[in-house]
């Protein structure tokens, strides 16, 4: 194919996926924000191409609803993509695993961004296990071009095997920019119901048939990996060693050699299940094999198990590479026994610059008030959640005692109250509340649990860059509608001016032997700045 420089785009890995999906005739993207996956959906939301084609791109309330909405679009015959960060797949897991059993009608691409080194996450779980668990093809790009190509071809693969396809990326690829050449623009699929009208009805009798079908597809899925253009072999004369490089790690390896050519045989993997014949050939022909994988030692664990140890397999388990964290060219050079360049000593003057809440942030006001109201009870009773307000764990606030997974503040407070911790407090953000707080709230409503819930509403999903928050401004109605007693729902704008009044409200509700919800509402200072700018622009324009 001739490539024209005019067709070249300079895209983040995330953006390349978005562009690839759109060019392949995407009809809808479904997602809940989460670093480092957010920019995929945001790119589509900004795209003129998507607007013209009316591609769905509104945010979903959480990853499970996103996954199900995408499955519904696939049911109707259209191509759908769902995007999330790795922990989002835990939330979507029920729908995800079962979507492999129902199968896909229109192409269904599940994009999951893992975060090795935990740049902005609470763990570094490896989504390839989920793909294996669900028994579906998994793609892992090594650069922006492959990210584009895999998104583009992923739908075809999904339609061919009638299963969802998992596209796994990591932070480094998601947030690096590189050149991308586009392919021909495809038309959207037409609305077309599945031929088998019962395959999505997972009653045990049908599910057994569907599950058998999924198992029967495995042979073909393996064959597809074996011949995949994303898995390729570079032969080389020195068989003292071979290297298997998954995803982005191939770049770090090639960096170490002139013209990117290693003296050892190299197997690059971009489609899983990893091609059995090719892997076997590497192990059979090389004296030892080094495995390069971002995330967990997923493939290494299959080749070198504690029950049948294989000394010739090297990687994260053997200690040749670190067990945790992201890889880089230096770590790989070390594992290969290469000499590193001399380096300058790190400066002892340099200090960390931990993120902190912005000056004027509404959460700061809320924590000052909550801390004051809690003085009489002592520390250790505030369960919190994930968002900018989690930074309240740091000094000088030291205001919260937990942050586990989205929504866990309310339910953990309830469990602690059930155990006798009174009062127990939950602090949760508006977006986190609609993501997974509402369901837990139902438990507390049903038992009128003696907990005080603070929904600190900054009118946005701030932590991930200010995306729409689906119920901001009407959280009191939502809570009352679900069944919280209206006398114990308080909404107000917190400020230094009404601080004493607010402390009094919190104190009163802490003393109350039942469920209360306190909703301080004030816009995030970052989005407020953005809105001000937009308003000035509008005024200038009108």
């Amino acid at each position, binding site marked *: 194919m001739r490539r024209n420089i005019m067709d*070249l785009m300079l895209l983040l890995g995330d953006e390349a996926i978005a562009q690839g999906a759109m060019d392949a005739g995407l009809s809808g993207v479904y997602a809940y924000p989460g670093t480092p996956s957010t920019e995929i959906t945001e790119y589509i939301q900004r795209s003129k191409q998507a607007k013209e084609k009316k591609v769905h791109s509104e945010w979903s309330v959480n990853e499970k609803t996103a996954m199900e909405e995408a499955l519904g679009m696939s049911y109707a015959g259209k191509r759908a993509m769902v995007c999330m960060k790795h922990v989002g797949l835990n939330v979507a897991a029920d729908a995800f695993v079962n979507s492999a059993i129902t199968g896909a009608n229109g192409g269904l691409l599940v994009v999951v961004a893992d975060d090795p080194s935990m740049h902005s996450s609470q763990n570094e779980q490896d989504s390839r296990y989920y793909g294996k668990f669900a028994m579906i093809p998994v793609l892992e790009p090594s650069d922006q071009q492959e990210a584009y190509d895999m998104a583009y071809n992923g739908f075809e693969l999904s339609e061919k095997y009638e299963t969802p396809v998992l596209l796994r990326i990591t932070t480094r690829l998601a*947030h*690096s920019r590189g050149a991308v050449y586009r392919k021909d623009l495809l038309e959207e699929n037409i609305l077309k119901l599945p031929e088998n009208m019962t395959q999505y009805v997972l009653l045990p009798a049908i599910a057994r048939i569907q599950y058998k079908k999924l198992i029967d597809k495995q042979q073909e899925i393996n064959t597809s990996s074996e011949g995949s253009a994303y898995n390729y072999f570079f032969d080389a004369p020195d068989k003292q060693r071979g290297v298997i490089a998954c995803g982005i790690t191939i770049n770090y390896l*090639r*960096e170490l050699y002139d013209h990117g050519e290693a003296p050892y045989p190299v197997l690059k993997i971009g489609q899983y299940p990893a091609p059995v014949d090719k892997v076997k050939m590497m192990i059979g022909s090389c004296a030892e094999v080094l495995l390069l994988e971002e995330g967990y030692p997923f493939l290494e664990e299959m080749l070198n198990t504690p029950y049948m140890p294989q000394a010739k397999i090297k990687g994260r388990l053997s200690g040749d590479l670190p067990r945790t964290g992201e890889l*880089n060219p*230096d770590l790989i050079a070390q594992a290969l026994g290469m000499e590193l360049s001399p*380096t300058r000593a790190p400066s002892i003057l340099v200090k*960390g610059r*931990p993120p902190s809440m912005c000056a004027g942030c509404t959460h700061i006001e809320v924590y000052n008030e909550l801390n004051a109201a809690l003085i009489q009870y002592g520390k250790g009773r505030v369960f919190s959640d994930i968002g900018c307000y989690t930074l309240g764990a740091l000094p000088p606030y030291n205001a919260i005692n937990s942050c586990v997974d989205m929504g866990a503040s309310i339910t953990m407070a309830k469990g602690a109250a059930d155990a006798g911790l009174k009062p127990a407090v939950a602090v949760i953000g508006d977006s986190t509340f609609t993501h997974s707080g509402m369901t837990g709230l139902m438990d507390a409503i049903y038992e009128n649990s003696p907990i005080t819930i603070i929904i600190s509403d900054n009118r946005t999903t701030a932590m991930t860059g200010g995306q729409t928050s689906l119920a901001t401004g009407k959280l009191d109605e939502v809570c009352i509608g679900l069944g919280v007693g209206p006398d114990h729902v308080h909404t107000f704008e917190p400020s230094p001016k009404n601080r004493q009044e607010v402390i009094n409200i919190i104190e009163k509700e802490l003393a109350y032997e039942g469920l209360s919800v306190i909703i301080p509402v004030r816009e995030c200072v970052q989005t407020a700045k953005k809105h001000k700018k937009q308003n000035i622009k509008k005024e200038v324009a009108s």
Partner: protein
Amino acid sequence: MKMDIILAGVGGQGILSVAAAIGYAAINEGLHIKQAEVHGMSQRGGVVQSHFRISDQPIYSELIPLGKADMILSLEPMEALRYLPYLGETGWLISNEKPMVNIVDYPDADALYTSIRQVENHVLLDTDKLARKVGTAKASNMALLGAASAHLPLKEKSLEKGIRQLFKAKGEKIMEMNINAFIAGRSLALEKDAV
């Protein structure tokens, strides 16, 4: 030709715009680039950093190996030193001298300057002040790019064109202010070199 640059700064300073301007310029000259960004917590005053690689040959790794960077370009003096182990023996350390103090244990600024001056090839200048002179301190990032431009493998004209591409959407006035900041940074750095 190959040039590996570490771009450094603090959230909100606009270091990623410097990356974008260099990116446009390199693409305009038909070069290969790869750029890794660390986003994440940047909005909240955290560290922002980018590995930027330019070459006339294909580039493999998105990350620069330790001791291999040809330049550290920083909008903040402590951030400039954070990446010292990446800087190659003959590499350039180019930094704004205005500290961004948002932590309690921020080091003594003079000690930072002394450390920066220990790097043989360094440029240390107040790009905030330079930018303010031509209109707005917000263009400090483009003044810094100007200061670095003589040591980049890119033509002055392509960099200027890159800046125009970057700020096109923001209107003529903002675009010109940024171009002027770039020119001011470039002239001052050339003067300093001459001394």
